[in-house]
């Protein structure tokens, strides 16, 4: 697997092609915004009947990353489930699959805005979590440092020879690291949006996901670039 290794507040981290973060030294895999059960929630509210395959697609991704890294600890950075209580409605197969992934691993669910209440699954349930120098929470907060979060589903957009290419990406500056969404049916917010441009320092990097993760200067609004 190609990864993008980088150091953040003394922790040697790897950005994985899938959008997961791996901290080799502590055997910790971090994923954000799985949004499991999204298609079920949408159809339950009378919305589109999206194909009900995104949960297994996401779990398959997670399964592969766990196998490849041999991670022994997992943090899900919030919005792991698309709606409170939706975990109860997941198909039996998917629930068993989650249980299998959890088996023998130290597993932490961080609360997100979509899943503020604890889920009925095993594992620790926390509002936020500290590990060594790093703090893990769902939404980035102003005035903190050494923070790892998710929530925004950041994407980078590059225009190359008239074509617009888009990749989910990590955003990284001296204070914070924001993870891309890991779930299959998740849209995103472009890094050049005002909110992300305001949140990240001027020298921030975007680490593009894809078969070969790579860091570039974070694409920003045209106005501030000029």
């Amino acid at each position: 697997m190609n990864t993008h290794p980088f150091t953040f507040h003394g922790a040697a981290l790897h950005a994985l092609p899938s959008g997961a973060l791996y901290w080799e030294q502590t055997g910790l895999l971090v994923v954000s915004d799985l949004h499991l059960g999204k298609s079920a929630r949408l159809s339950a509210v009378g919305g589109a009947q999206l194909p009900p395959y995104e949960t297994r697609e996401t779990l398959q991704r997670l399964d592969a990353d766990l196998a490849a890294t041999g991670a022994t600890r997992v943090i899900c950075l919030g919005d792991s489930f698309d709606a409170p209580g939706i975990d109860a409605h997941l198909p039996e197969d998917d629930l068993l699959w989650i249980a299998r992934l959890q088996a023998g691993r130290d597993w932490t669910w961080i609360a997100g805005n979509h899943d503020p209440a604890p889920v009925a699954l095993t594992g620790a349930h926390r509002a936020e979590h500290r590990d060594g120098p790093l703090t893990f929470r769902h939404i980035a907060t102003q005035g903190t440092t050494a923070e790892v979060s998710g929530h925004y589903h950041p994407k980078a957009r590059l225009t190359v020879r008239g074509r617009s290419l888009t990749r989910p990406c990590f955003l990284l500056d001296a204070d914070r690291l924001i993870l891309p969404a890991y779930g299959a049916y998740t849209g995103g917010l472009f890094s050049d949006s005002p909110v992300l441009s305001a949140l990240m320092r001027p020298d921030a990097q975007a680490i593009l996901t894809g078969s070969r993760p790579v860091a570039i200067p974070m694409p920003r609004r045209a106005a501030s670039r000029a």
Partner: protein
Amino acid sequence: MSARMESGIAPPAAPPGGRAGKPAPRGLCPSWPQVANSPRDIFGQKKHKGSAAFAFRVGRKVIDPVPDRSYLGARATLTAAVKPVLLLPPPGYFSTMTRLPDALQHWFDTRGWQVHPHQKAMLDRADAACLMLIAPTGGGKTLAGFLPTLSELTEEPRTGLHTLYISPLKALAADIRRNLRVPIEEANLPIRVEDRTGDTPASRKKRQRADPPHILLTTPESLALLTSYEDAPRIFAGLQRVVVDEIHALAESKRGDQLMLALARLQTLCPGLRRVGLSATVEDPQAIARLLAHGDFPCEILQADPGPDPDISMLITDEAPPWAGGGAKYSIPAVLEQVKRHRTTLIFHNTRAQAEIYFHNLWLANEDSLPIGIHHGSLDRGQREKVEAAMVAGHLRAIVCTGSLDLGIDWGDVDLVIQVGAPKNVKRLVQRIGRANHRYNAPSKAILVPANRFEVVECLAALEAVRAHDLDGEPRGPGPRDVLCQHILIAAASGPFEADTLYTEMRGAGPYAGLTRPQFDACLEFCATGGYALRAYDQWKRLMQRPDGLWQLRDPRSAVRIRQNIGTIQDTDTLKVRWRGRGGKPLGEVEESFAASLTKGDTFLIGGQIVRYEGLRELTVEVSRDPGRKPKIATFMGTKFATSTQLSDRILRLFQQDDWPDLPPHTRDWLHLQRRVSRLPEPGRLLVESFPHDGRQQLVVYGFAGRNAQQTLGLLLTKRMEEIGLAPMGFVATDYATLIWGLDAVTDPVPLFDLAALEAGLDGWLAGNAVMKRTFRASATIAGLIERQIGGQRKTGRQATMSSDILYDTLLKYDPDHLLMQITREEAMRGLVDFARIREMSARVGDRIDHLRLTRVTPLAAPLFLEQGRVPVRGSADERLMEEEVTRLLNESGLAQVGPKRP
């Protein structure tokens, strides 16, 4: 000249180029009165001196004082009075002649007018269950469609809806409403007419549902919406007739399929409903009649006199057209000269981008400052309306336009149609030429302007086809099932239904006459549960079956969402363009992908102006004025038509002549040279050339299968070449040939053309192909899987694209036989992939493949090297582009030096 033109009135005695001396029977007036608020209103005494009756007769000579006769124009109907029409008069015509009601007859009489034969025939056959009138553009057919309604409502005044009129354009519905008012008000007929489209205010729509007018003018989408209401039976109670205008245009798209399903619904509600279709000249009237026919009732066809043949020629200039491209810039001086010589000229282009460039160049050369406007579908509605008003008022000498002017609104006093670029399709050309037929009994005048050397040949072939009345058209397959899914949801929105009854009703719609029960059930299943192989849960269901067997919406609130997503028109993802600043004036739209490629300071053309990109504000592109002269060009989507099979065949036959005296010398010499150094393609054979050029091995396949099929052929052949190890690197396709370049020369092309192998290869590459994703997105939107409207807010195109691609990938992986995947495949095969024409080519050619190994580029192949749209053969194109950009960024930013080492 221009001062007189601005008054909008041509002199009564001699319309330029008109045939004032032609004798005609007394007292015929054929045409529908002009719009009341039009400056050329023939009843508007303020604007026109003298009575309308006078205007039409000077002694025994019929003179046309107002050459513009509107879409119900005078010419064809008058000639119809003189010459016998094809199917008319029917047996017993004179004895059973239907009389108009006195009030209406009196109104005609006071003007010294008579009803024309085909209009009379429509009156006589007013009882027919299904009737289609075919008349040339401007042949007075809309009046023919309405006369029975006016007559019936005058004879037996009543309340409630009597006639529904469906037009493909909102503007046409509004135009007809204004026109119908004149006889109704002047003859004091007890008839109320209203239109109902997307532009109608909600308050009026609401009132129309409570108290429908006698005649309701609407569009297929608005009709589908009406049928989705629970009170549909009450709205349509008593409906007698439905008139479908411009049915030939609707029949070519899913809008027609949608309309026929809605009509089937109406037929259930109103069993005695009579259907009337009004069509321009088409190649296969039976095919359209079959669409319109309901169940077991066949559709009768009435054919009006087609009128005189058009006066059509090709523009030949001293300067030869370029070898490739579609700009036709070389023709500007000659075209301006033609504009000067005519009153109003329509200059048609095949794409919006070409129209913009041409318009720009036209103005650069327009030293006399002739008033010339531009009109196409990407322009802001306000802008378009302004141009339309100026046209009707006669203020414009020329309008650069696209297909947006193809349909029948009265655009004023057009006496010349110029088609820039090869017409690609003879039928459309003929319909376009008909825009210039406002002088009765005089041929329409049209000039074709080839944009490049090959198009000279194409234009000549098109000219011959028009003269031979050889229209073309691709037969349309059975009605697509995505539209069916939408209508099942529409039915559910209107109330509980029984599956058997709905199936029978839908089979009553012409396009779905062959629908099988399993096909229907699959669609119902999809609507009810999503149709996934993975059994979902109760709350997944959109429809549920009640204990009494009826189907209904699980959540009644979803009816709102269903209604918001009605329609089959796929608007490309466009962003509005406005002048910068608060309340900046809207200019039009550009494609989202184009907008994404812009950076501040880039310039592009829109509405004929060069503008400078300032930035994106929410979903609007903000621009400022730019005095620069070299714009970056906007890539409007527009439809790219492939040259029709019939026209391609004609070109092949043309090549077989010993010499081409009708072609200008530059093109004639070119073909002779090709014959000398290689050979010309022949019907029934496939010419394949190979030669080295540019350090690569080139292969040219002259398949004459149309752009889409040649493109598909390029993909399939390169895939085969890859398998054989010939290292293809890319290809480019035109309507007539595919050029492939690679590292190794092809020595024996025959194994490449094994149709079975080609088709087997299709599945693999199709699966992950962008064409499939695009098709999937369209069908998934129509079928209701993807919602474009959520709470009245359109999702941005990019969001929709993103999610539909992911959905497609997920279905491909977990549920490849899902109904929508089947539909996507069917649609792609007959649409963008156009595999039918590859099959057709293969059948035509058999094993008669002529391969010529040559040492250098051939004359016929040369233009291919200048073609746009080269497709590189590599799956990792995006990765490579990304790599390139990343490397640049890393070097530029210095990250490459300081950042962590990449593995």
